[in-house]
């Protein structure tokens, strides 16, 4: 019994360690002082300032473009891959599955450097396009894994029933499989969108001039000074990401 309460206490300590810095960051985004270390009263000044910062707004637009386009592309590729893996066994499937997981486990910095070198080699100028390609690549295995897990729980007899009732394979997929996969797909897309929005390392290596995204912008602002403006921006990013993940989890549970 004693051991158990000790375990619970340790778990809560972990959570505290994880969320305390974030909580402090959020609290100080409302600090009236320009020096972020001392509390001088409540203020929304830094948030107001964010919305007038032209560079910041363009970084936001870039982030949204990269996240949206790469999510759609990763979504299409991921769903097709999931269906192939689950319904159409093929040669070397085991090897394929291991290779599919690699982008999730190899260090992000390696991915970033490798992609940078690759883009330079094929003479593709760094831009929003190169970022979109990179984000699609690290997101598509995530979508494939989530959708596949959902597909695995689906009774294959449902597709058989559809074809028995006269549906061609494509119609059976569209009318029966796809609607039942939808919660998994939506959840996977929200997750991919969040990962893209939050990514720093791979974006840092594949971004070109003028294609700065929000995390890169935050990093750039820190280089000059830690202003409460950074706190405010980070607080917004944290809340949006947590909100998206919460929605993704909720949708998938349906």
């Amino acid at each position, binding site marked *: 019994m004693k051991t158990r309460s000790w375990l619970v206490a340790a778990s809560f300590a972990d959570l505290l360690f994880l969320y305390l810095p974030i909580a402090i960051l959020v609290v100080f985004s409302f600090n009236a002082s320009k020096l972020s270390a001392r509390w001088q009263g409540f203020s929304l000044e830094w948030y107001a300032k964010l919305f007038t910062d032209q560079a910041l707004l363009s970084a936001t637009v870039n982030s949204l473009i990269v996240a949206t386009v790469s999510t759609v592309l990763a979504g299409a590729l991921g769903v097709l891959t999931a269906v192939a893996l689950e319904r159409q066994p093929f040669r070397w499937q085991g090897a394929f599955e291991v290779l599919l997981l690699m982008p999730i486990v190899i260090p992000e910095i390696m991915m970033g450097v490798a992609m940078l070198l690759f883009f330079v080699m094929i003479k593709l100028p760094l831009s929003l396009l190169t970022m979109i390609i990179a984000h699609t690549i690290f997101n598509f295995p995530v979508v494939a894994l989530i959708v596949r897990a959902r597909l695995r729980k689906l009774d294959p007899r449902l597709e058989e029933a559809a074809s028995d*009732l006269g549906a061609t394979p494509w119609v059976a997929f569209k009318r029966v499989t796809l609607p039942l996969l939808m919660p998994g797909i939506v959840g996977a897309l929200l997750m991919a969108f969040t990962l893209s929005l939050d990514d720093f390392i791979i974006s840092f290596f594949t971004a070109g001039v003028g294609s700065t995204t929000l995390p890169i912008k935050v990093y750039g602002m820190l280089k000059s000074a830690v202003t409460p403006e950074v706190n405010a921006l980070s607080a917004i990013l944290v809340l949006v990401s947590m909100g998206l993940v919460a929605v993704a989890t909720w949708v998938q549970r349906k």
Partner: protein
Amino acid sequence: MDETSTDASIVMREVTKRHGDTVAVDRLSLTIRKGEFFAILGPSGSGKTTTLRLLAGFEQPDSGEIIIEGQPMQGVPPNRRPVNLVFQNYALFPHMTVAQNVAFGLEMKGLPTPEIGPHVAEALEMVRLAGKQDRLPSQLSGGEQQRVALARALVNRPAVLLLDEPLGALDKQLRLEMEVELKALQERVGITFVCVTHDQEEALTMSDRLAVMHHGRLLQIGTPEEIYTAPASAFVASFIGVSNSLPGRVQAIDGQRTTVAVEGIGLVHAPSCTGLRTGAPVLVTIRPERLHLSRDPATDGYQNQIAVRVAKAIYSGNEMHYLVTLPNNLTWKARVPNADGTAKRFHAGESAYLKWRTAEAVLLPE
């Protein structure tokens, strides 16, 4: 029946299907007539479900030929076969309402939307589900789901309706009701029904003819009565209802009657069976309800009699079920009607005489 006759709904010729190293269906040949209720009966792993999936088109035979309504089915996908399947777990589309489920097949046929509604209503009426058209499958009971599955298949007016263990998921009371209902439905719509089941009672009650399968092979085909009263092998005899058997050797054959010597018991008689010679090992089988139990050693018309000990007496409503021990230590089952009141009942430990008429036994080569 001639298998090329126009009376045939389904013809299977020498159909073989392998799953890896195991032969799921082994050179199966059978003909199913138009408008008949045909049951395929067998234990799990007998190849009966594979047979159904071959007919539906979900699997292709490795060799042999399947002809449905005069059309060879080689290479024809499930969506272009004149058959519909009622799945074992019903496989209703969980995201569609009852009406949408039933309408699915008609939509696939390209029927105009205004015509679909009346057909769906009629099909739901037929399975007594009118008024439940807007429910989701998850809001229905097991019996109702089963009837939706039936309506969804029958609304397409297929030439053949395939049913995979249609009553397997229902409780016993509902199963008995549905057996009668399914048979009545089949007679009303006049469609050929092919029903796969492991339940011999279900097969006997519902079918016009049935096939017994074991290890991928067809063992016997015939009417329920033929199969019940004249099983062609020891497996069929034991699988179709509980059967008692005595192993022995042919002692003498006297026209219609064969005398069998049974070690530890003596001589018993059974109707002759073709292809047996003196000395051949045989099984004498007899059904529990054909046996008589008496305290009186007089033969009174029964040609066979064995002294036994009652091992167990089980009250079962209108019948008594007895387990009796034979002199050679075999245990047999006997079922005796309870109409005579309690006075004639036997109790565990009592001695009794087990009697039967020669004509009630079935002789099988071992």
